[in-house]
């Protein structure tokens, strides 16, 4: 998605959350906040897409049955790759699910904001 497209989503999320939701109550307000959250998530996913693609590429040849069977029990490198991918996904879902220190240590530089 182009930066203009991402900016469109960011602004839509802001207006849903700050413009529309406060004027509503009950189930309608909840629905507006859910929609704001969804649009903001989609914007973050678009921003993180190149990083996520690389992190997933690094896990592409993974054999899940082998993990289950115990072939990777001490595989610190695999654990680090899984964690790198999970950090990006967690940031997309909710940037505040990572502490500021975690964001600095485990995320690419352009994904340190919330």
């Amino acid at each position: 998605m182009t930066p203009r497209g991402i900016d469109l989503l960011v602004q839509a999320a802001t207006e849903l959350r700050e413009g529309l939701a406060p004027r509503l109550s009950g189930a309608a307000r909840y629905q507006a906040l859910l929609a704001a959250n969804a649009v903001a998530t989609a914007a973050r996913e678009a921003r993180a897409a190149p990083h996520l693609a690389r992190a997933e590429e690094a896990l592409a040849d993974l054999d899940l049955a082998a993990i289950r069977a115990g072939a990777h029990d001490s595989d610190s490198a695999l654990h680090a790759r899984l964690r790198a991918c999970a950090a990006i996904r967690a940031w997309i879902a909710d940037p505040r699910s990572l502490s500021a220190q975690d964001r600095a240590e485990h995320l690419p530089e352009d994904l340190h904001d919330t």
Partner: protein
Amino acid sequence: MSDLTANPALAAWLAKALEADEARVTGARKLSGGAIQENWALDVATGGQDHALVLRRDAPATIGASRTRAQEYALLDAAHAAGVLVPRPVGFCGDAQVIGAPFAVLERVAGEGYGPKVVRDTALGGDRDALARELGRQLARIHAITPEAEVAAILGPRPDDPAVAEIALLRGWLDDLGAPHAGLEWALRQCEIHAPAPGGVVFAHRDYRTGNYMVDAQGLTAVLDWEFAGWGDPMADIGWFCAACWRFARPDLEAGGIADRAHFYDGYEAQGGRLIDPARVGWWEVMAHIRWAVIALQQEARHSSGAERALHLQLTGRIADTLDWAILRMTAPGGITP
């Protein structure tokens, strides 16, 4: 379902359940919440008496972990008989003709149950340390339940090793989802390596957490959500209650976001619960995150399968991503820590 006030069969069933000559449903409104089932607040008049009730029936699509409404009712009834603070059971109707599906009716309990609000709004629940102690006492009462034949049949065979059984259950659920979840596979394997040795097995609630009990301004009013109850490690309920993923906005208050652990533990042990085993509780706290992650993915699958298209289900699936991150931090090679 909107015609609950004009349903003669329901009125007749309620009259019998309430031991009255006749009953009239004077009000019915759908309550919020309930991903798994629909809850309706019913106002019922019998003679000169008014009854505030709740009617529960299945939501359009239900997740795999859920028991039938009849089984859930029997479990709640057993808890009520054992003196656990639950809504008084009024009756269960297995006849789908009455309102279109089997349903349970319970007394309506006043109070707030929504987890984030219970944690945030300290005007609720009375003294929070006392609330945590009371929740510990209630859990000890649950763990002391000796199931009668009908309930024992619902629970099925008692597992020798609940830890191994839980890992197998969650792997089965992951397999049913169909899509690969490498982080959860990794975490389940690490938990398997470090699983605690089998210990005591008790009647367990298996969804005992903030969000599944109700409080008013004074304190606890009811323990809810009995559909997952079954045999379990007593420390699994303790771990589920204390797990970081169920503390909402207060991660510092390790007993369900409401108090320090010590108060919850004190209430549990004082009421005759097992001795708290911190290492075993910690293992179950890690497993709690994995279980919640898999359930979140199941909810997302309800949307993506087309069974029930809904934004809130899609966003619940995203919670699994934040849990995955937390879980991988807890399961580095060499040992697991919640």
